[in-house]
């Protein structure tokens, strides 16, 4: 009960923040009612998806300080679970999505147990490796379409299919992912002040001190890693129904993993609003780059160059991202 209450309790934020967040929330709710281009709609959906990815990453990567560069493997597990079950057995999204979460979390426990014996850079590198291994496995696994991937053919279904999440109009997808977005914010808001949330911040501060306070550091990290995984897997399942065409490279590739981590780090790792701010900056940038340069953007690697520059700027100037700058300015004003 207390947990549920604290999810809705934003009282420790300044009034200004709550007002701005409220205005943005209302804007997000009514956005589809305004006239908008298909491009704007697609960008908004991407923004919401990446916000939720980032929120998940933020639990372990931000509050826990464990830089995880392998989140894409769980996008893949979610996406493939939903796609395979829908295509082969016509099982709707609302069943396959929770199942995908269970599978992803199970996998996260299996690899999390050994991975969290590593620290710092070694941990980050190992997460990349596990994600790439899974991608390679899926690229040769015929059952899931190997490198060709899977395609959900919409012709078989009647629009709009709320059970299977097969829609013709993007507006339906928009509201589904917006729902996940709000649930995600509430969850993280409760999480950051829960016992586990406090324990993780203490772990980030000083692991020895944390364990002297009765915290099982290894287990707390594994648990949080599984929570982060659940977030990412839900959006992965959504991705399958929304994009309808999934390939190992798109859903499990390294650039997706890096993008997820980058969202949260740019916006502000370890803060509630950070991943949302990060996605709000990066996703339009990514979309416009793509629109502007066409397929060439990916080929030329310009997007990757820009991400690299951003990573360097964050680590050199302000490790706590955009939100860190906001807080610094504020503290200076108050003093």
């Amino acid at each position, binding site marked *: 009960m*207390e947990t549920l209450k604290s999810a809705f309790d934003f009282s420790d934020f300044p009034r200004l923040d709550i007002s701005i967040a409220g205005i943005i929330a209302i804007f997000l709710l009514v956005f589809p009612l305004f006239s908008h281009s298909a491009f704007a709609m697609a960008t908004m959906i991407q923004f919401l998806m990446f916000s939720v990815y980032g929120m998940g990453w933020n639990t372990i990567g931000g509050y826990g300080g464990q830089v995880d560069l392998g989140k894409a493997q769980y996008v893949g597990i979610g996406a493939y679970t939903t796609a395979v079950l829908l295509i082969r057995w016509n099982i709707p999204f609302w069943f396959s999505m929770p199942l995908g979460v269970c599978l992803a979390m199970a996998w996260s426990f299996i690899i999390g147990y050994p991975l969290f014996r590593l620290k710092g850079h070694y941990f980050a590198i190992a997460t990349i490796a596990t994600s790439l291994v899974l991608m390679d496995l899926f690229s040769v696994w015929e059952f899931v379409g190997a490198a060709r991937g899977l395609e959900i053919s919409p012709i078989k279904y009647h629009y709009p299919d709320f059970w299977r999440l097969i829609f013709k109009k993007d507006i339906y997808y928009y509201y589904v992912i917006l729902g996940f977005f709000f649930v995600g914010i509430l969850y993280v808001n409760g999480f950051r002040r*829960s*016992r586990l949330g*406090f324990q993780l*911040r*203490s772990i*980030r501060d000083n692991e020895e001190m944390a364990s002297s306070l*009765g915290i099982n*550091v290894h287990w707390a990290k594994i648990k949080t890693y599984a929570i982060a995984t659940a977030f990412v897997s839900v959006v992965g399942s959504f991705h399958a129904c929304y994009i309808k065409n999934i390939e190992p490279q798109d859903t499990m590739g390294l650039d997706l993993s890096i993008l997820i981590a980058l969202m949260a780090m740019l916006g502000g790792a370890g803060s509630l609003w950070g991943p949302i701010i990060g996605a709000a900056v990066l996703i339009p940038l990514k979309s416009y780059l793509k629109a502007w340069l066409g397929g060439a953007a990916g080929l030329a690697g310009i997007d990757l160059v820009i991400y690299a520059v951003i990573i360097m700027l964050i680590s050199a100037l302000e490790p706590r991202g955009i939100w860190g700058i906001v807080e610094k300015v504020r503290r200076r004003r108050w003093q």
Partner: protein
Amino acid sequence: MALLEVLNLTKTFGGLSANQDISFSVQEGELVGIIGPNGAGKTTLFNCISGFYPVSSGKVIFNGKNITALKAHETARRGLARTFQIYAASGDLTVIENVMVGCFMRTRSRSKAQAAAEEILNEFNLTGIGDVFVGELPVAVQKRVTMATALGSGPRLLLLDEVAAGLTPNEIEEIMANIRHIHSHLGIAVMLIEHVMELVMKVSDRVMVLDYGRKIADGPPRTVAKDPEVIKAYLGERFVREHQEML
């Protein structure tokens, strides 16, 4: 029955024995000071008792149970809290949040943890600074915060590792008041590693002296301070001359 019983504890790092065949016990509510030259194995002893290091041989019995093989977080959950000599605060947690992490060991509820933390801050005279980030505080206050945090976990035995090192006399007075509160008022047993003799001699019920990993003396502060071996190994003749009135 003693609260803590250490039997023939030995800890070796390769060929170096940092603790050699150390045995002692700590009674419920007792305050035991540990002194000795640098490298005598004082902090290693704490690390072995609290489960940060596996012991090479010997036994640690706490509250009647053998805790020798337990990990740090498990000994903490049985009521053995500690502070660290070097406190690396990156400054991400405020004072009250820090103490709450300690309190969360005993409860899942945030409101209970917060209430408990506020009470401890009150007892430690730290009330005004609850919302300040720990990293922004002077070292002396940081050390008191770590004591408060350790206390939050509700220990029966508290291991304090050089909480007064490098502090001014005034700050030492404040720390001493906190230690007395923990010991006399709350009745928690304390083991105290310290180089500040004024502090150790004043607050300890008993003092134990380590030298080259061995226990060379154990007894009431006055007796230990007169022990020729202790004077030779650690205190020095001058200390005894200058502190006649204290002893």
